[in-house]
């Protein structure tokens, strides 16, 4: 292909931009999700649950690290991506903008957000972009544990009136924006679909529904329509807003900048 800067993946400019957006959105979501899980390392309903949250936080940061590193092929400096961006530049999902207020929201987040991320990652792996395929299968192997923990806890919480009420509040708030990020069906996403690098919006939504519908049924919640694209931020691949400053300060490691080792 002509006109491609040497070293960049051989893709159409529009496809490359869209693919970079997708990888950055996955990386940022995993970075912030790790922080949200880590808040519950202590103070979860049981020690075991807290330890699981700690392992999941660790996994999310491992996945984020690999995803940021993969953006080097797109001309990015992974160190700058991880340490030098303002909150407003983060492309993480809206459901992660504020901390999870209680354990029900942790579990709803693990089902909705972590679940959507797993669906998106699997679709990228199937798209066959070779440099990232193998990394994703390792990530999805680790994600299988998140899923079984999240689903077991979801069923448990859904069995009590208060648990069900809180889960329902969280999933009803997060499903529509999360569906939009997973499968925006905007110009960028359609360019990726045409290039075969991810699944179509209908496909991704169907897979997500298949994955979590049995859980939503416990709460008598139907899968909503994704949010429309009126306030869509095409550059970041999410709606307006950004993760809370405090989370971004931790993600960047602001307090430890003088002790930087990378």
């Amino acid at each position: 292909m002509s006109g491609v800067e040497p070293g960049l993946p051989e893709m159409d400019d529009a496809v490359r931009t869209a693919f970079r957006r997708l990888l950055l959105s996955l990386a940022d979501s995993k970075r912030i999700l790790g922080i949200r899980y880590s808040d519950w390392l202590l103070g979860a309903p049981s020690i075991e649950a807290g330890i699981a949250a700690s392992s999941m936080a660790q996994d999310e940061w491992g996945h984020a690290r690999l995803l940021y590193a993969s953006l080097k092929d797109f001309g990015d400096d992974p160190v700058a991506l991880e340490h030098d961006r303002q909150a407003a530049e983060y492309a993480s999902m809206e459901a992660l903008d504020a901390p999870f207020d209680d354990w029900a929201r942790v579990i709803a987040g693990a089902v909705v957000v972590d679940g959507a991320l797993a669906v998106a990652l699997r679709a990228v792996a199937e798209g066959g972009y070779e440099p990232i395929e193998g990394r994703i299968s390792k990530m999805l192997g680790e994600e299988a544990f998140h899923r079984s923990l999240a689903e077991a806890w979801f069923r448990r919480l859904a069995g009590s009136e208060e648990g069900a009420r809180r889960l329902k509040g969280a999933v009803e708030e997060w499903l529509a924006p999360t569906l939009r990020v997973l499968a925006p069906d905007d110009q960028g996403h359609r360019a990726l679909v045409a290039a075969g690098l991810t699944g179509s919006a209908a496909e991704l939504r169907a897979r997500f529904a298949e994955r979590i519908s049995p859980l939503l049924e416990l709460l008598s919640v139907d899968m909503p329509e994704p949010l429309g694209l009126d306030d869509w931020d095409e550059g970041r691949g999410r709606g307006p807003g950004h993760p809370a400053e405090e989370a971004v300060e931790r993600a960047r490691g602001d307090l430890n900048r003088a002790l930087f080792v990378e």
Partner: protein
Amino acid sequence: MVELTTRSPGGVTLPVVEAPSPEDALPKRVTSHASGGRDVWSEPMEDAPGDPEAVVVELLHEVLDPELPISLVDLGLIYGVEFEAGRVRVDLTFTATACPCMEFIREDVRDRLMREYWVDAVEIREVWNPPWTRERITRRGREQLRTMGVGV
């Protein structure tokens, strides 16, 4: 670099601290002298080997995982070795994407190989394909783990 304001939890504004350049950063080394089976490493060889790649694999059999006392080779972490004109490239993976021992393992591999006068440089390439699973542990590794009461 983006200007960053660093705040303490109390909301007091602290002076902005730029990330130091690599030369000013913390010392790179993390390894304690005991890690990676250093106490059982053999003496450096006197002569350069005829088949350096096979010998590198043998040497990596001496490098133990920081958490389980079996070698990186038996744990199934080594995916390939190449040797050319004094440069060794080791392809290796980790058991988890956020394995807390990554830096220890890299240093142990590098330190063991750099003991040999015929090794000038060690490049470690992180690979994730195919992903590590327990099936990659060798038969010998399994037996060693079993004698320590670790079921695989």
